[in-house]
């Protein structure tokens, strides 16, 4: 098996802790009653771009599993796995389309958003429902409705939170430029 660097391990741990705190304690109300916006997917997309697909998958897996554990409703494996797949997908596309580091200009951000939207469609439109059918035999229509809502709201969240994070991160990396006092 491939050995992770210690830094990646720590990034997974801290990433999962952040995912947990955002998913469990930070709730901003959404327009649909009794549901909240999942801010943690903005974080997950961002961390996957920075630390790669394996870290992304594990942050999603561990963070989501811990959230489920802390509510006590058991682990809803289908959705936990979908979170992991999401981290992996965004991380992979970041690798393939070379979004890392200082490439996050306008072009990079467009790529990032395409990747994150496609990722959400695949995860909530395909992965989660298919697993739900396999594991729980739930009706397709219900899963589709659920997936559609989750996918859209997560994509909107990621588009704003994830994009702003990427911009802030790219800006926080000092670049050798020509800054002059005015």
């Amino acid at each position, binding site marked *: 098996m491939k*050995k992770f*660097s210690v830094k990646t391990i720590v*990034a997974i741990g801290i990433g999962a802790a952040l995912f*947990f705190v955002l998913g469990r*304690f930070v709730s901003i109300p959404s327009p649909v009653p009794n549901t909240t916006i999942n801010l943690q997917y903005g974080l997950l997309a*961002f961390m996957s771009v920075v630390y790669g697909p394996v870290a992304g998958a594990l942050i999603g897996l561990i963070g989501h599993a811990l959230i489920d554990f802390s509510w*006590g409703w058991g682990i809803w494996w289908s959705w936990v796995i979908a979170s992991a797949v999401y981290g992996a997908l965004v991380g992979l596309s970041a690798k393939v389309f070379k979004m890392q580091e200082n490439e996050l200009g306008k072009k990079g951000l467009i790529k990032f958003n395409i990747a994150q939207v496609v990722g959400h469609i695949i995860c909530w439109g395909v992965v989660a429902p298919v697993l739900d059918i396999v594991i729980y*035999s739930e009706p397709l229509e219900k899963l589709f409705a659920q997936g559609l809502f989750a996918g859209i709201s997560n994509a909107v969240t990621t588009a704003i939170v994830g994009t702003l994070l990427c911009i802030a991160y790219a800006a*926080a990396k000092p670049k050798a430029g020509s800054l002059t006092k005015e």
Partner: protein
Amino acid sequence: MTNLFNYIERSSPIHRMTGAAKLACLLLWSFAAMSGFHTLLLAALTVAAVVLFRISRIRVKDISFMLGFTFTFMIVNNLLIYLISPEHGVSIYGSRTVLLELFGPYVITAEQLFYHLNVALKYTCTIPIVLLFICTTDPSEFAASLNRIGVSYRISYAVALALRYIPDVQRAYTEIANAQQARGVEMSKKASLIERLKNVSAILIPLILSSMERIDTISNAMELRGFGKNKKRSWYSARPFGAWDWISMAVCGALVVLSLVLTALNGSRFFNPFV
């Protein structure tokens, strides 16, 4: 905050089992429950789960908060299934026994009710076991347990780190959120959704970027004390397996086999009383 996952220290046979064995049992048990819709097996598992719960000496009032959430979740999920797909039971069991006509497409059929019973049983047979695991397992034992059941120690340690730093992240979040609210960040319903998301980013950006700065410090601290130098590592909180650990794992393994055998005998994952 220490007790995020509601570990309750008591003396019981279940507490005395090792975390690794309990984790293995939890996974096997949930797999047995997930793999089929054998109503009798699910009902038996539910009864067994409740009995185990009594043995653990965890009281209902210790977990009333979590139970509340779980049951709400279960009811909402069942309602949602019915609202969107009232004929789902019919399509599974292949017959249609109408008990009551409501309005429009909403009909109550015996098949649908039976399907809902099965869905509910799936919850009731796994939830007590999950709660049992959470309430009787010291979080310190968690990472060691994962490693014991075959997860690489590096990934297991990532889980331990997550548990370690959740309280720190939570505290940082509160402090940053306070300071940003003072600067006028609005997160209540007063602002539009897009506006709210932009505002909350003003909290998340400093939170996440300052957390990322710590990644270097922590990984240095770990490497300076030799993390990752060997192929294996031992765990301070690991305990050797005892007789009960082996017995429980064997029983749970047998449950999985039983569920698979039932599926094979039945020719389907569904026990069907309507034929």
